[in-house]
């Protein structure tokens, strides 16, 4: 199918979103709550664009991360109204994450040097984009979720302190755009959501690998034995080389 973005005709395949088509065509659309690997959320609204099915329709503002590409649709990505929306949204997000480098950078790029709105009482840098809870659900732990409604919402463990379901994989901290989820690694000890895990050291290289809880989850999901996850990639490569060496009969069956 063919659609036009900022006047340029572009080919698109059914099932693609406007964001995918735009990015493929090199159009830079900012996103915060979008992640290619996770279920679309459509909450931050930064990626909004204007669409018109017929030339004389009034432009409709839609999130490009969710709006499916349609044949013949006219898309504008940087109209004056859209730029004002993005600037205001970033201004609003500064009330939640005044110290986040990403938000500040995006805000400056959209002409907002510093927040003009009244900041939240105790800003925690969390912008409630739910990337962390979606990642946790994708990994299969379902340890955290948003609690509370509206502006009082926050990401938390059940009853704030129940970290039983957490497996210490660290995906939540990795995907958080404002880095407000604390993950501390000291040697093989990992502390996250107030709980400390032991990452099992690799028998070959001694590097910390995954936590036992995470290995059990991966075992459940993949059918592989739990203990098969406790060797680092470095160690495994060495083991593979040894095995090949043994098969081929070079050296005394072991790599140096």
């Amino acid at each position, binding site marked *: 199918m063919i659609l036009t973005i900022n006047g340029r005709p572009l080919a698109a395949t059914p099932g693609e979103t406007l964001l995918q088509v735009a990015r493929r065509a090199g159009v830079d659309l900012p996103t915060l709550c979008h992640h290619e690997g996770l279920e679309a959320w*459509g909450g931050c609204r930064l990626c909004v664009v204007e669409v018109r099915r017929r030339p004389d329709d009034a432009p409709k503002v839609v999130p490009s991360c969710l709006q499916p590409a349609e044949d013949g649709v006219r898309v504008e990505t940087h109209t004056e109204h859209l730029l004002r929306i993005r600037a*205001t949204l970033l201004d609003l997000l500064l009330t939640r994450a005044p110290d986040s480098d990403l938000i500040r950078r995006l805000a400056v790029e959209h002409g907002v040097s510093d927040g003009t709105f009244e900041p939240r009482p105790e800003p925690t840098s969390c912008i409630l984009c739910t990337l962390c809870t979606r990642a946790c659900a994708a990994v299969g732990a379902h340890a955290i979720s948003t609690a*509370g409604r*509206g502006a009082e919402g926050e990401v938390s463990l059940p009853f704030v302190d129940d970290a039983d379901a957490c497996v210490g994989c660290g995906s939540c901290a990795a995907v958080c755009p404002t880095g407000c989820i604390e993950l501390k690694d000291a040697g093989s000890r990992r502390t996250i959501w107030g709980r400390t895990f032991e990452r099992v050291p690799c028998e070959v290289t001694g590097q910390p690998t995954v936590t036992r809880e995470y290995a059990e989850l991966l075992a459940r999901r993949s059918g592989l034995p739990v203990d098969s996850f406790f060797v680092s990639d470095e160690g495994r490569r060495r083991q593979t080389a040894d095995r090949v060496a043994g098969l081929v009969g070079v050296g005394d069956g072991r790599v140096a």
Partner: protein
Amino acid sequence: MSERIASLAALEAWRTRLVAAHDPKRKAIAVCAGTGCKAYGSDQLTAAFRKAVAERGLDVDVRATGCHGFCERGPLVVIYPSMIFYQEVGRKNLAKDVAEILDQTVAAAPGAEQIVARLQYKTPDGTPVVHEHEVPFYKHQNRLILSFNGKIDPDSLADYVANGGYRALAKALGTLTPEQVLAEVDASGLRGRGGAGFPTGRKWRFCREAVAPLVNGVPTRYVVCNADEGDPGAFMDRSVLEGNPHGVLEGLLLGAYAIGAREGYVYVRNEYPLAVQRLTKAIADARAAGLLGADLLGTGFAFDVHVTRGAGAFVCGEETALIGSVEGNRGQPRFRPPYPAVSGLWGCPTTINNVETWVNVPLIVDRGAAWFAGIGTRGSKGTKIFSLVGKVNHTGLVEVPMGATLRHIVEQIGGGIQGGRAFKAVQTGGPSGGCLPEPMLDLEVDFDTLTAAGSMMGSGGMIVMDDRTCMVDVARYFIDFLIQESCGKCTPCRDGLIQMGHLLHAVVEGRATRATLDRLEALAPVVRDASLCALGQTAPNPVLSTLKYFRHEYLAHIDHRQCPAGVCKALITYRVNARCTGCTVCAVQCPEKVIAGEKKGLHVIAEDRCTRCGVCHSVCTFGAVDILPGRGGKE
């Protein structure tokens, strides 16, 4: 009547038996058992009537019916067959009222009934009215849906059938194909009563034509009745559910037949326990009678319905949020497309309509699309129930044809403003709607005219405001309401409304400047255009419409630091005037103890320490406490 009705003929036979058994001349006392009248003790009244009738050995029915609509004058009693209307029965003296009504009105021969004058409705100029249909509140209405409420006992399937209930269903199952039923609804021009006014026929067609996934081997579609009714100030769905639950069920049955659904849900908000109770009983009775379940009336059509309760979330009135709630999740809206008609409950095509939309369907199928299309305006067909509340003399449910003017509703039906004060505005469409000023009173009310005027039909809430209502405070109230009810999913609504709230509080608390208005008007379009669902998209409407029609009040708050209506605490002053008789009640009642004065002497409020709690004004029976705009004393 609990045994199954095996066929359409059996249903008709039962109906003829019921109608024949009904003696039109038989006397009956209909006591309203809607929530409003129950609040004024109508349950005790009904019991008292039953006991007194038994003691007197009178041959007369005592029937508890659904809400008659004129709630503020409850408990309401109508004596059949002569339709004599009594109001506020048993409020002050239960036994006396019951005795007088029975002895003077019920015991007398028809035509010779004496009227208990003190329980009669009196028009503003004092003339008493005898019959229900002569009461101005009812006279100027066109009560199609609400007519059932007064007549039938909501817990009685027989009453509903005797009054034509399930005749439309029999007609559909017996003589019409699903496509014909759908075409009938389409041709009637019925539009959704939930608020947006989407054409119902078209919505049904989308759902019927959508590919239905198989659920244990059966292509599955759902019909849902949205009884979340979150709009504050609207309670027509409640009265229909409590007064005529079978009407809603019959509508769902017809919709399911037309669309091809086998299962339905009625999503009732948590604040309506009586509606849930009546609906649950109606469903049980319908199942027992073979009107729900498998092989309905021997026609092979199968449909069942479940009641699910909301749990306190205004946003669940939005379709995708409602779906989320029924599925056991948070009521958080989802992006569309896919629309629920294509992929709704558990991914199956789902039709969601409001209570009032569903209860119109049996009337359309029974009397035909042409009859329905004959009522209302070109773009909006049929009647609409408004809940007329606020500063108006007759508050209650008003059913008028689309196209009736605001003036007709507020003045003729509503009986004008309380205490003869000046009309200032009427708020329609709930938190998504707007406030319309006096010049708009001649607006013919329908979906399109209200939207054009910057408001919205919404579910039909109509809150009348007088000169003592501050429009800035109303805008602040709605934004504070929506801040509480925002689901928090998207930035513009979640964080944008908070900032609009701060700006409005600044105006209300006398901390604002002209720039505050500019910032409000800059932020509103962002919230309107960028929000994910209708809650956020329409949230700025009350602010924008009050700014449009009542900008002078905003400026009074900003430029002169005054609240003309005397509401905003920071911008008013309580001061005792010359009418003070020194009765010392205000001094005693004042929580802050800031009123000084001798017995019999003029009292004085220490304005710098007064917290403007309003107690003195409300307890003073001599009208000696004035509320002056502007902030004297306390800086």
